[in-house]
């Protein structure tokens, strides 16, 4: 049982989907119960991953089997600290997103939950694949259900948003495929056998220089694929459309998990497979500048939004800018902070989208001007929104602070100017979030329609509880997270900057450094 634990986690949603297909589409409640049960089980079976994960070891729960021998593709899965956190985020958010769809979706319920379960397997697959071919299949598998979730159950401009999302990400991923194939072929040239396994491909040494087939070429192909997914400025334009039009659960999953596929791609593939290109001064400079533009631009645009959901959507651009900045600081603090911030963004932005979902189900508008003084009518809602908002804004003792601080620390070590610019994103972040809270929740009730709103139901509160608990845990005691991340992050840094740790003053061992960074 234990050696197939990861496969079980991966395919539980798919098994749930298989059973779901046999439930008649008329019995909506049965479908809902089953889908919630399946995703709850999906979360529960993933818990042993966390409890049995051994800090300090490399990839764990690995499984490996030949799949397409003539191509050298394997069914190879396994997780390290980075994957573990993202898998746990995926299974938890998958369950919560399913739960928050209970009353929001009443049309074509069966197809809806079927898409969610398929999506769930695709997302977990992305984070556990140790074979590039397998990874690519899961990467693409995610697109189709998301297209339908936006396109069928979305808002008024859903079709436009759905196809835009699909086209953008697909264009990126086929270019990424070219990069994969270049790497694969170069590996064959050097070792005379075809394989897609990451551990094997890592041995490939690509030529350097700005020509076809070089490390830089592969890097930029990967970059397009991942940057569109993150999304980094200037590839972000699909994001506001997709977020605004998607149903609540779709936005939650999109923000909490799908965007992380891009940052995960940078960490798992770009950096370790193409270390010289990733450490190239020009490339790092370009990526850092794009990240900083993303941070500031996303925050400024958020300030100007009249639509509640669009505001949060643009804030994602800003927050993900921090994540990519941390990655391309290329030091332990930056990268560890980036991973933590990815989890944080999943938690807090997930919560913020759910907050919007709660109010949208009652009022069917997302215009900020329609609201005001809701705290008087819906006190429970106001508290939960406040926690979500503060965790997103990076209030100390909540999760956002830990991530942003560590990233800024890493950025500062890499280049002080980056940190100086990025810090303004924190300030602007606080500004747009607090202003949003003030306009919607505080003061007198300005709109008569809001007087009769009923407060959150038990189900609605319950779905926030695990996220709030997680946010506080990371905020108060992040050490376990930094411990888990220490080894994989060290591997990445050592790969990009060989001898990085040897050059450090011996008084501060690496584990101490990174955990100190988070604890301050």
């Amino acid at each position, binding site marked *: 049982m234990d050696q197939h634990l990861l496969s079980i986690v991966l395919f539980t949603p798919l098994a749930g989907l298989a059973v779901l297909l046999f439930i008649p589409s008329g019995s909506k409640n049965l479908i809902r119960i089953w889908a919630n049960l399946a995703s709850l089980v999906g979360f529960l079976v993933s818990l042993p991953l966390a409890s049995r994960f051994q800090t300090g070891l490399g990839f764990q729960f690995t499984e490996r089997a030949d*799949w*397409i*021998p*003539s*191509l050298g593709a394997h069914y190879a899965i396994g997780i390290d600290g980075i994957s573990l956190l993202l898998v746990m985020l995926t299974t938890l958010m998958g369950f919560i997103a399913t739960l928050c769809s209970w009353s929001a979706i009443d049309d074509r319920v069966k*197809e809806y939950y079927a898409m969610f379960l398929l999506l769930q397997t695709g997302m977990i697959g992305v984070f556990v694949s140790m074979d590039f071919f397998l990874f*690519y*299949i899961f990467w*693409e*598998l995610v*697109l*189709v259900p998301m*297209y*339908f979730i936006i*396109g*069928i159950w979305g808002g008024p401009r*859903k*079709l436009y948003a759905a*196809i835009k999302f*699909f*086209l953008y990400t*697909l*264009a990126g991923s*086929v*270019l990424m*495929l*070219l990069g994969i*194939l*270049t790497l*694969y*072929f170069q590996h064959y040239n050097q070792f005379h056998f075809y394989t897609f396994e990451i551990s094997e491909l890592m041995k490939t040494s690509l030529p350097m220089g700005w020509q*076809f*087939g070089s490390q830089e*070429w592969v890097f930029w192909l990967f970059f397009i694929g991942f940057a569109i997914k993150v999304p980094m400025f200037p590839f972000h334009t699909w994001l506001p459309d997709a977020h605004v039009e998607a149903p609540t659960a779709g936005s939650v999953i999109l923000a909490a998990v799908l965007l992380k596929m891009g940052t995960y791609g940078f960490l798992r593939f770009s950096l370790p497979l193409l270390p010289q290109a990733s450490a190239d001064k020009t490339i790092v400079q370009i990526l850092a500048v794009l990240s900083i533009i993303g941070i500031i631009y996303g925050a400024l645009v958020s300030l100007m939004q009249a639509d509640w959901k669009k505001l949060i959507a643009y804030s994602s651009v800003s927050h993900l800018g921090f994540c990519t900045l941390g990655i391309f600081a290329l030091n332990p603090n930056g990268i560890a902070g980036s991973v933590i911030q990815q989890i944080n963004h999943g938690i807090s932005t997930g919560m913020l989208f759910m907050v919007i979902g709660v109010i949208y189900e009652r009022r069917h508008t997302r215009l900020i001007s329609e609201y005001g003084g809701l705290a008087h009518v819906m006190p429970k809602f106001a508290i939960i929104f406040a926690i979500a908002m503060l965790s997103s804004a990076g209030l100390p003792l909540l999760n956002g602070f830990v991530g942003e601080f560590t990233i800024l620390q890493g950025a500062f070590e890499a280049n002080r100017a980056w940190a100086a610019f990025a810090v303004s994103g924190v300030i602007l972040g606080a500004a747009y979030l607090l202003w949003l809270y003030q306009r919607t929740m505080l003061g007198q009730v300005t709109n008569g329609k809001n007087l009769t709103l009923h407060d959150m139901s038990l189900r609605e509160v319950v779905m926030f509880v695990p996220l709030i608990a997680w946010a506080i845990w990371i905020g108060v005691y992040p050490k376990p997270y930094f411990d888990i991340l220490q080894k994989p992050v060290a591997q990445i840094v050592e790969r990009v900057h060989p001898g990085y740790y040897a050059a450090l003053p011996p008084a501060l061992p690496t584990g101490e450094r990174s955990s100190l960074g988070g604890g301050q």
Partner: protein
Amino acid sequence: MSEFYNSMDHNSILPAMMLVLFGCAILLFDFWVFPDPRHRKYLLIFVVLGEIFTGYSLYQQSIQLQSGPLTGFHGAVTVDGSALFFNWIFVIAAMLVAIVSYKYLENAGEHHGEYYSLILFAQCGMYFLATGTDLVTLFIGLELMALCFYVMVGFLRSDKRSNEAAIKYLLLGAFSTGFLVYGFSILYGLADSTNLMSIVAAISAKPAWDPVVFLALATTAVGLLFKISAAPFHMWAPDAYEGAPTTVTAYLSVASKAASIAFLLRLFYGPLAPFASTRQVWEPLMSVIAVLTLTLGNLAAINQTNIKRLLAYSSISHAGYMLLGLIAGNDTGINGIMVYVMVYTFMNLGAFLVIVAMRRQGIIGEDLEDLSGLMRKSPGYAVLMLIFMLSLAGIPPTAGFLGKYYIFLALIQTHHYTLAVIATLYVAVAIYYYFKIVRTMFVGEVTEKAPLATSFGMRVALGVTGLMTLAIGIYPQPFLQLALPMVSR
């Protein structure tokens, strides 16, 4: 057995003989035994039997192949691994098209027995396109196939569009064949023989940039590119595809294209290819044509509102991908073409089969709007169509991805990076129009309630194509093993 017809000759054309025999049998039985139109579907038994016998003789050939290629009629026919591979494709395509045709033709009011024999005769032409190693054999094969298709495209006699399509196809087809024959005549003049082996010897003795060879190359290529509907020789395809009965469109788009690709490979790749030695001349030209084909096919498909026209343009773009495999020209590229043809057969047939089922008594069902709300009405068909569309677009884990995978890899291996980038970006363009169909099916409202025209044959054919499209995508190993050793032999 005499000097003119020995057992080697016999074995090398056995499958074609089976096809002709059963084709003639259908004509006779149609006339003598089944005068009542309602009984004509029993003629299907002859098609199925014919295909079984053809398949069996192909199997026999594959056993004999183990001791080297099978040559007959003094080198006019050569059965090798790739010829066999293509012939299996023809068998599958002909069989699947035949078993869904009776319902369609009954609904269209044009159910005649000769339809089935035309399918078999066309397949016989394809047999010689795949196995011919002599200009005359190849030409006769091409004409036999084309003539059958001219008739089949115009099979809906009372339908103006069908007639128009047939006459367009006939005129343009004849025109392009003229080019081809002109090229053949020059080749004959160069080598003093119609045998490909002698022509190869004659051409490789000349410099690559010989003007006469170039003229032969150019004129032959025009004829071939017309057949695979590569731009700018694609004009016939959308009209013929739209006007023809949908079952014929399916057959035309899959089997005829596969046969023409086999023909193209015969003349451009391998030891018996006259133009293999002039690669440096045609490679840049073919690259331009491939890019043009991809561009035109993909961009023109975007605005189509008739599904058959849309799929016609999509099949033009698929021809572009197959051409890219030839341009790469290494083993991966040629294997890639084979794999591409194999997956294309299943996914494209499948997509057309769904359109076939849309034709009901009094409903033509070829407009995009006719698919509206299919997911609510017939979820099975809608999900199958989704799989075919994903596969045509090349999204994993469907079979179409595997075809494109090989083409892209071959382009990377041969350092055609620019072509590779262009080819991949058109995948993203293609998804737009394929998903126009998906969107209509899944998001649109039901406009008319009449159930789809289903039949036993339709269910079998859709089951096979759908299953294969998924199976080749998810676990391709056995299919690759089936296809690739045949090719390398």
